[in-house]
């Protein structure tokens, strides 16, 4: 847990327009040129079971194989190599978008894969923080929060579904729930919000409702002006800003399916609907089930199926709304899993991981970075990004440095949370 930092708090006050965060915020109503979605495979996925396959050759140190499928079954899709299902694992139907073959056949041309990323940790909390903020220590906002910060005045600028969603007070994260609650919120004066036929029947008549709302707004302004404690002034200013944003959730409801799906798919549906209706700029999606200390092959395969199925569904939603050229997706996890099995047929935490990107601005069918047979990161030449013995080891710092440049994070924001590391053309 991080103690409050004075400077960050002042920044937070600024969010409400009292202090200079307006420097980095476009004029109210500006349309974001790009939406960002991060998908977190929470718990630590196994890249060797996905996009950095090794096969079942026995390790020289006697610790057994990295995987339990033969290297001969490793497959390719364009320039990408992906894993086979381990022996004894029942794969999903090939009709399922979560099947490895189906997913990569459909999406390899959109996917940019970065292997051999060293998270320098094997602790969940630390790994999530590093992978999603670019900083091992506490205090930096997640990528999705940073992307939404210039549009913080939008009512749902940043949608969070858990995981690492620290915002450094740059933007208020929004959390979502079941579809019925959206109706209740979209029509706060309606007695029957979920019934379109009776929706107009309010607790108050329209004129009375308007009078109450106007009185509330005037009262809040009076309170703020007369308040002496800066903390309360800031809180009132934030409340005022959010209330004045004049948002209508009608648009969101129009883009939501009649029944919002469960799990990652549902998170995807809400995020894309919020983008399409102009309410949100970024979203962090979150899926658990990857912390496979026991029965790794079976459980990891199931989690990966759900992940790939969810990502495919996310892409379908994006296509449905015609946002292919506006939404960039980053997929990652806390870290990787050991290149050997423990006594419970599980795999423990390993600091090497992979990152995948797809969508707007991303050149697909591209592979960067590499690991050796024991799933250890290889050094890369900073200029060619090819393995080089005197090169550098990729870390999430490099990923975020490149992502910030790629997403054109405003310089003022970038300077608030500096990442002092060499710039690599990872997403260029």
């Amino acid at each position, binding site marked *: 847990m991080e103690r409050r930092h*004075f400077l960050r708090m002042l920044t937070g006050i600024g969010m409400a327009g009292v202090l200079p965060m307006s420097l980095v915020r476009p004029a109210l109503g500006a349309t974001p040129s790009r939406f960002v979605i991060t998908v977190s495979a929470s718990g630590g996925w196994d890249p060797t079971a996905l996009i950095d396959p090794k096969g079942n050759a026995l390790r020289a140190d006697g610790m057994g194989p990295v995987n339990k499928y033969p290297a001969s079954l490793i497959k390719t899709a364009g320039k990408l190599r992906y894993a086979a299902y381990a022996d004894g694992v029942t794969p999903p139907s090939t009709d399922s978008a979560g099947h490895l073959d189906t997913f990569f056949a459909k999406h390899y041309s959109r996917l940019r894969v970065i292997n051999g990323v060293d998270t320098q940790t094997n602790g*969940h909390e630390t790994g999530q923080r590093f992978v999603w903020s670019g900083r091992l220590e506490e205090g930096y906002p997640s990528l999705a929060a940073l992307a939404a910060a210039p549009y913080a005045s939008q009512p749902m600028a940043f949608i969070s579904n*858990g995981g690492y969603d620290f915002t450094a007070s740059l933007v208020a994260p*929004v*959390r979502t729930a079941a579809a019925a*609650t959206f109706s209740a919120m979209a029509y706060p004066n309606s007695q029957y919000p979920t019934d379109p036929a009776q929706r107009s029947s309010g607790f108050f008549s329209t004129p009375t409702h308007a009078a109450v709302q106007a009185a509330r707004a005037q009262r809040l302004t009076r309170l703020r002006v007369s308040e002496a404690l800066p903390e309360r002034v800031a809180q009132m200013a934030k409340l005022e800003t*959010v209330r004045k944003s004049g948002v209508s959730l009608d648009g969101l409801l129009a883009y939501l399916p009649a029944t919002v799906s469960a799990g990652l798919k549902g998170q995807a549906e809400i995020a894309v609907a919020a983008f399409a209706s102009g309410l949100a700029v970024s979203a962090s999606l979150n899926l658990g089930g990857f912390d496979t200390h026991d029965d790794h092959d079976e459980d990891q395969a199931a989690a990966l199926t759900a992940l790939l199925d969810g990502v495919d569904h996310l892409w379908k939603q994006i296509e449905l709304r015609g946002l292919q050229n506006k939404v960039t997706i980053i997929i990652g996890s806390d870290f990787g899993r050991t290149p050997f099995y423990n006594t419970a047929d599980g795999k423990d935490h390993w600091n090497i991981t992979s990152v995948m990107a797809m969508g707007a601005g991303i050149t697909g069918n591209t592979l960067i970075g590499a690991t050796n047979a024991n799933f250890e990161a290889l050094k890369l030449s900073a200029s060619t990004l090819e393995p080089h013995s005197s090169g550098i080891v990729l870390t999430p710092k490099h990923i975020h440095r490149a992502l910030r440049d790629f997403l054109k994070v405003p310089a003022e924001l970038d300077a608030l949370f500096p990442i002092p590391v060499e710039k690599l053309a990872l997403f260029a």
Partner: protein
Amino acid sequence: MQASLLSLIRPLAAVWTLVLLLGLVALTPPVHAASGASLPTYFYPVLQIPRIDVQGYGSVTLSLVLEDAASQRFAIASAVPASAGLAPGGTFTLQSGLLKIPTVRSGTAFYALTLQLLPGDKFQVVSATDVVLPGQTAYAQQCASCHGADGLGGAVGVTLKNCANCGTLAGLTAKIAGTMPLGNPAACTGTCASETASYILSVFNGTSAAGSGKALAAIEMLPLDATLRAASLQLVSRLPSTSEQALVAAQGEAGLRTVLDGMMTEPAFYNRLSEIFNDWLLTNRYLSTNGSEAAIQLMRRYPTARWYDPGASSRGTDYVFNRDTTNDSVAREPLELINYVVRNNKPMTEILTANYAMLNGFSARSYGVDTSVFTNVSDPNEFRPVKLSGTPHAGILSSLMFLNRYPTSATNRNRARSRVVYDLFLDVDILALDGARPDGTAVDISSTAPTLENADCVKCHSLLDPIASSFKNWNLAGSFVKPRTWYTDMFQAGFNGTAFPVTSSEEPLQWLTARIVQDARFDSAIVRLLYTGMTGQEPLDAPGANATPAETEAYLAESAHLDEIQAKYVAANRTLKTLVKEIVLSPYWRADGLSDPAQGVVHAATGAARLLTPEMLHRKLNALFGFEWRGTLNSYSSNVKLLSTARLLDRRQYFGQIYGGIDSFTITERLSDPNGLMVFVQERMANEMACYAVPNDFLAPKSQRRLFAGVEKTTQLATTQDRDAVKATIVHLHKYLLGESLALNDPEITATYQLFEAVLVEGRKRVGVSELTTLPALCQRNNDMLTGASLSSGGVDGRLRDDPQYVIRAWMAVVAYLLADYRFLYA
């Protein structure tokens, strides 16, 4: 004139002597003499001497304020009995009138001062000489470039106040001798290391009480009656009773302390306490809301874990209840331990040293222990301490919930558990040590055991691994397994530079917790946890090298105040109830304004104003209206008995998560600022609750009404008497709902009256035209909300459906207006 000073000192000394006689404080040895809180300081314009011994009288804390810089003359600002635990920082000799202070800190310099008492209770400096403390030179030359001249975090931002190695002089000395300065530890060993350690502990681990006093003096505090209301709502989810209000009115702070003592015996207080501590521990991740057997699944080694399940074909109607209750009883174990310690006024150290677990009849059956200790085995609230066989308990740290919530692995080797122990129980963020972790390219990990051999790694692992290794007999699943092979290529069990004795018969984890609770940082950690929980604000971080004067002053003021609170808590045998009372009475919790607007920069974050959590808002509504916000309120009487039925604010499937709540699982951080969806939740709540609460209140006899005891549902604005009654009711509503005490002619009362009048007048014009004579359908009362009994029976129609004059709807508008108010939604 000396008599004037003596007249100030004498009665205080008498009070102090009385306290001593009662045995409530111990002067020597100081509780944490090395903390440096006793060090006199000069922080322009205040010279603060935490403890002066006055020959033959006792000790006082003296504040002198510079009156005339040219003549270096000071006036007495205050003199109060010195707190327990302070070391003498100066002497005052009656005969000579000389005040001698061997060491005064001013910024990063030190002086020896002698002041002469002058007529008129003034002190004038008669000599001031530079003092160089042992270790000061070495610190300036070898440490200050990184840690800052003031020790509050320099270029790398690592503060030395409450630092990870600041538990003991020996521990810090060893750290310096072995690892500092970075890259050249041989440069400061032996005497250099011990003196530098002593300097750091005595100088940086104290605070400027003078600066603190100035900053604190600017805070205007809530009056005691408002403090009582706020504390009552937060701690026990109800309004204070008439007798409690009377006691506070009659006895002031003492009365408030008495009332708080009473409140802290109520079950609601322990619910709130669990909420506060769960925000840190997150062990509620295993409640049945996160899976019906989320906790039971952790008990595979206990054959009777699922005692409630006779098999799918034989399950009775009580199966689900027993399953969920058992699961939640197991899940609540660590939080119930905290409750038990607090309820029984035990020292908080016991949360880590308890040699027992807290079980009730349900969880006891899962653990397979004798249930005869329970009075009622079916009472889910009857938790008792039980020693589990074969389990060397170490309080929370050995609980199944903690060990699974913070799991380990063969590669992690309990280091994650160690990090959490540092964070939660030693107030140390281990990841912030020594700046950023070296990049992979910069670290030589080619040796067999880099965490033992590479200086870059040893920096953190020498701290992290001894605690990690102390968990060595607790496996990934949270089971105690002994003997268990442990890694030799890492630092072995130990704490603060002391290794766990290999010949000891103690369990390493028990050995560890016994030492953690003796460390002053454990006290700091408990203060931090509770302060954050009660105020909704984390204590300020150390300001670092580039801090503005305001940042530094804010940090020092808050830090000094928390040190003071901590000293009182320690002196009271570390009972949490003492800490609760001190926080409630602290200026930070009671802050309501600033007497000096210039202090606004320093107090940018002062105050306990916070957006109510969804749970707190849920309970507040219930406390004020007598019913909860549920869906749907039409079915309140039937679904109120069901814990899980549509509690709109504290259930994640409704608004709990949207409104910033946590599930302790995937969502672990509360939202402290409203967002675009939360304001809709606020508005719906206000509208819906007004719709139910207003007609419901009018149904009650006048004497039992909470809102409208002064008016009827037909009272309009036709007469002066009616208008006065309406205004008086509005005054009451502002007081009852918002805690505002306003006069009849206050502009806010006028504004609310104008809203009532506008809605009433305009609404009446629309009745029969565009609006009905009846209330909106859901607002009509046909049944008793709480019992469901029909209001139309026995030939008497007691229903409330009509509102021909629009009066009820006008009051609904007023209540909805107030329920979405900042002062309702924030504490």
